[in-house]
């Protein structure tokens, strides 16, 4: 899978830094007066010297500050939720923006010793992450980004209530303003989007051309088809503590309302939840309107709102 997060573009000035990370070394510039600097520059911001040399340092330091971001700063970062954004103060004094890995949010402590972790997953470049000095986390994260398998949400422990579709009062008791809990999470990969494009014939570049999307799309990355995210509802196992029984057939009548209020960038995880909005007795059976909302994990605004209409006959 392609790395869907923003990538650095090394310049002629910063290239030695990125080359260093690739070699699993942290390299900083130092001026002839001994000042260490970060980020890479053409001069020393302390004394103005233009006489700078690249030097390898340990990369170790301490946690200067951090935050636990509960809302993704960009949808592409939902796989990290919560994001452990941090500033590390290297032993040389330089401050570096990074993220912490291999540590529980509650165990983060400003001032704690940290060591570098070289993250090779982006492929073309290596990123510099940090972990507490005493953590067991390996010093390198290698290879392809792990494709997260759908994580099953803990199923309700209680046996499911059986509700007869012929018992209108019981069926109506399912109507609720409140949404259910969340389903499992599914990653919407570029591969999935490409397959859907081939199948549906909608191969517009905004979905299928990551390079062009990076350059020209207002979203900066490819996005899933709304219709794809809608059908992925079938992969989302909604937590239901009831089971409707006593019917011969269920007819899917379609949708009363289908909206795509926000995008799903490629590589994001989605999850869903539902609520029963209406139950009506028709001549032919009982009609249930169920709203299914699908969100990018961590986003308040849904990506799909679908008022599904089903007839239990």
């Amino acid at each position: 899978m392609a790395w869907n997060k923003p990538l650095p573009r090394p310049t002629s000035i910063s290239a030695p830094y990125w080359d260093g990370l690739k070699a699993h070394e942290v390299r900083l510039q130092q001026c002839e007066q001994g000042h260490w600097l970060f980020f890479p520059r053409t001069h020393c911001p302390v004394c103005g010297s233009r006489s700078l040399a690249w030097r390898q340092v340990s990369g170790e330091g301490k946690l200067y500050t951090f935050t636990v971001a509960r809302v993704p700063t960009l949808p592409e970062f939902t796989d990290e939720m919560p994001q452990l954004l941090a500033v590390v103060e290297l032993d040389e004094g330089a401050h570096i923006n990074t993220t912490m890995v291999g540590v529980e949010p509650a165990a983060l402590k400003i001032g704690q010793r940290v060591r570098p972790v070289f993250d090779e997953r982006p492929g073309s470049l290596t990123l510099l992450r940090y972990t507490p000095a005493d953590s067991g986390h390996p010093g390198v994260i290698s290879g392809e980004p792990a494709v997260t398998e759908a994580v099953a949400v803990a199923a309700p422990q209680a046996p499911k209530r059986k509700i007869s579709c012929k018992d209108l009062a019981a069926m109506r008791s399912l109507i609720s303003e409140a949404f259910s809990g969340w389903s499992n999470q599914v990653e919407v990969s570029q591969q999935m989007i490409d397959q859907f494009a081939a199948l549906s014939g909608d191969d517009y570049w905004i979905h299928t051309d990551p390079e062009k999307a990076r350059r020209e799309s207002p979203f900066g990355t490819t996005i899933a088809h709304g219709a794809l995210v809608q059908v992925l509802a079938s992969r989302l196992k909604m937590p239901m503590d009831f089971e409707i029984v006593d019917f011969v057939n269920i007819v899917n009548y379609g949708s009363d309302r289908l909206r795509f209020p926000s995008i799903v960038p490629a590589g994001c995880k989605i999850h869903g939840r539902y609520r029963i909005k209406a139950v009506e007795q028709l001549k032919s059976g009982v009609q249930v309107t169920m709203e299914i909302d699908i969100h990018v994990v961590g986003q308040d605004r849904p990506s799909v709102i679908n008022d599904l209409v089903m007839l239990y006959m």
Partner: protein
Amino acid sequence: MGLQGQAALVGAAQYKPEKYTSAPRMFHLEQVADLATQALADAGLSLADVDGLITSGPQFHEAGMFVPAMAGEYLGVRLNFAEVIDLGGASSVGMVWRAAAAIELGMCDTVVCVIPSRMAPTTPDDDHMLEVMRASRFGGHSTRFGAPEAEMDLPYGHMAQNTGYAMIAQRYAATYGWDAAALARICVDQRFNACHNPDAMFYGQPITVDDVLASRMVAEPLRMLEIVMPVAGGGAMVVTRADKAKSCRHRAVRVMGAGEHVHSKSPTYAADMLSTPIGPASRKAFAMAGLKPSDMHMAQIYDCYTITVLLTLEDAGFCAKGEGLKFLREHDFTFKGDFPMNTHGGQLSFGQTGSAGGMTQVIEAMQQIQGRAGERQLARHDLAYVSGTGGVMSEQGALILQGA
């Protein structure tokens, strides 16, 4: 040296904040003309009096360069002083002192400072719209080749404002301690003020400390109600020569002191992220005015987040460093209280009208000094401290205003 109080704020106008989705769309040139003429009418002046113009530059819709010339041409004014400003939320404070300095130097007589902040009508092929969407996606962080933030921040997910302010707050907590309820009081008292301001976004919606503490955690330790809501709006202010100000409609509000300090783009690269630029900016402003924090009758403090207010109270000298939480616990910040602050509701409750958000604080100070603040009018209303904050507490400015 310094401003001599020979320039004064005499009038202003601003759009009532509205949600972006429901606010009218207007070209920025149209907003400039609308807001400028309203502000001039408020002052009792006309376009014929104007010979200076300061606009916001970077987000101006119709042009990326030659902005003051285009806006001046549209307005129909000839300019002896033409300027754009690019200091984010510190822009309005920065506009006022630049206008006052230009007037005192004799460069011009009357300056209109204007920031349009309603969205403009767009067409699908509008390249500016694409730029705005891209920029807003990355929270205003530059994505351009060679920009340090594109290279060193974005790949890790460091972007926009929330997490930067949260990291400052987290370091504050580790250094001086934390009291979430004390910070929530800022939101609650300002909401009380907003409930006496029909123009405020959250008018008629009082909140409690418990509401703030129960609101969603966004970036620890900052919760939803401690973070401003960006809305559409915009404003204009008129600054003129003090002698000319005497014949204006309202009391002249003299610009007695000003300061500005920019210490970095990202707080990560500041020497000490808890020592904010409002410190040096405020010291200069107070020294220029020959006044001290305890002389002030009100403080209109830029409040994009609660942590901004806490650090401004400390660094501007209203209390000692590290004493801010105690100060919050010991004072009442409503317009009825012993330390009237953000009497219009602050941006937390009035709404943050883009880069014009900081202008709501300047305008509130002006209207209070002029005795035009309606039911939230202060009894003592001659002296105001106003702060502006841009970026992540990386560029800040302060004004000392005094009624003539």
